[in-house]
């Protein structure tokens, strides 16, 4: 796995300090909002949006609205994070819905997505 670098585990939890610790000097970009129906049909738009923010460095995703999600969506996010990681950026979550947590947990992708551990319980 190319993008899986060693990474400090604390990053995800220490939300408050993250932005200052990150290499990005701009203020954290506005969270990218994942749509309620985050299934395959929504991927083209989501992909475009993610590509648009890729350079921003410290990315925050808002998963609170997600009601429907599929493997394609989670894969897109995994690959997004992989690329972000490779560029030295960071990914954190502004919040996640139960549907998102359930799907990521079931597919074993929570770690690759840097999902907050406590959300998975």
């Amino acid at each position, binding site marked *: 796995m190319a993008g899986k670098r060693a990474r400090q585990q604390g990053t995800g939890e220490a939300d408050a300090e993250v932005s200052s610790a990150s290499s990005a000097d701009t203020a954290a970009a506005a969270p990218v909002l994942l749509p309620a129906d985050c*299934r*395959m*049909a929504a991927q083209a738009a989501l992909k475009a949006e993610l590509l648009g923010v890729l350079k921003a460095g410290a990315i925050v995703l808002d998963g609170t609205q997600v009601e429907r999600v*599929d493997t*394609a969506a989670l894969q897109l996010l995994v690959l997004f994070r992989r690329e972000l990681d490779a560029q030295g950026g960071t990914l954190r979550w502004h919040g996640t819905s139960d549907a998102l947590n359930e799907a990521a947990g079931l597919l074993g992708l929570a770690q690759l997505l840097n999902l907050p551990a406590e959300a998975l319980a």
Partner: protein
Amino acid sequence: MAKILAVDDSASMRGMVAFTLRGAGHEVTEAENGQLALDVARGSSFELVLADVNMPVMDGIAMVRELRAMDGYKGVPILMLTTESHTEKKMEGKAAGATGWLVKPFDPEQLLATVKRVLG
């Protein structure tokens, strides 16, 4: 519940499928061949398509192929309603992009179980 498209040239078969699914709370649209199904599908977004294999005008296999090429239907489950003796047809359907199949004859319970399986 889910929006489902049921495609079959046999009215009785289609009726049985639609009736059963509606009874379970689904919203079912019926079409009697592949061509009509494509017309309906284009202007709508179904979460599941159930289609007979052998139909006039456009058969189920061609329909699946067309559906998969349409935006919004790339990952939608499409189940072929087929008879066990037609293994080649099964494979042909799969090659066209069908998700799986429901072997005729099936009873309402089997239908609901399979639909539940696909819709998760």
